[in-house]
């Protein structure tokens, strides 16, 4: 299930990135490549596991769904850290200047 949810997140972020392109002020390109990287790796993992061990291709249960949601939240968290550190809008700079 986490494969499907990550792939969905990749498709949505890529669509938003394309709508805003060539402007990538908020690093949506980074976020979409993060999701695509994980989607590709899990796809390979699922295909090899299915070919060698058999069983269900996708795990559809509550635990797998929660993992999918956790993965998306974690990716968004990492992206936000990168965004705050790079500070493309200069918000952090303005806040720090205002305090000093």
């Amino acid at each position: 299930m986490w494969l499907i949810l990550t792939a969905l997140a990749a498709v949505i972020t890529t669509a938003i990135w394309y709508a805003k392109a060539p402007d990538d002020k908020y690093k949506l390109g980074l976020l979409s490549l993060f999701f695509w990287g994980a989607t590709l790796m899990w796809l390979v993992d699922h295909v090899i596991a299915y070919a060698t061990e058999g069983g269900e291709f996708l795990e559809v249960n509550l635990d797998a769904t929660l993992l999918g949601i956790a993965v998306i939240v974690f990716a968004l968290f990492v992206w936000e850290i990168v965004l705050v550190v790079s500070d493309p809008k200069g918000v952090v700079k303005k806040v720090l200047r205002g305090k000093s």
Partner: protein
Amino acid sequence: MACFLVPAGEAIVTTVVQKVVEKREKKVGGEKAKKTGLTWSRRLSWLNKLLWGGTILLALEHIWHGEVVLWPPFLTAMETPSEVGPMLHEMAIFGGAMAATVTVVWGIMILVVELKSRAAMPKVKESPASGGA
């Protein structure tokens, strides 16, 4: 078990390569970029983002499934000597395939972008008046 360590290793290598290429391009002055529209450091940054994104999110999945812990020896398979062999086998098969797939997809991306940028570039016809020594 620890398949994500193979793409992680590749990501470390490609990140170092990107930094080296970036330095060289700054020295040269980006003449190659003017010809094709894209620098190699930018192309490598796409591969790095794919690899690091996959590695970070797969690491979370491994923590979720209890295959990776935040204390030594970090990989639960390392606690049992009989599980080390299967872990290395899984790293070679799954991790190797993951790293190879991501790299191939990136290669296709580069090829498509290269062809598109070449098609978009205006063709300059050499006239006899402008050329020659």
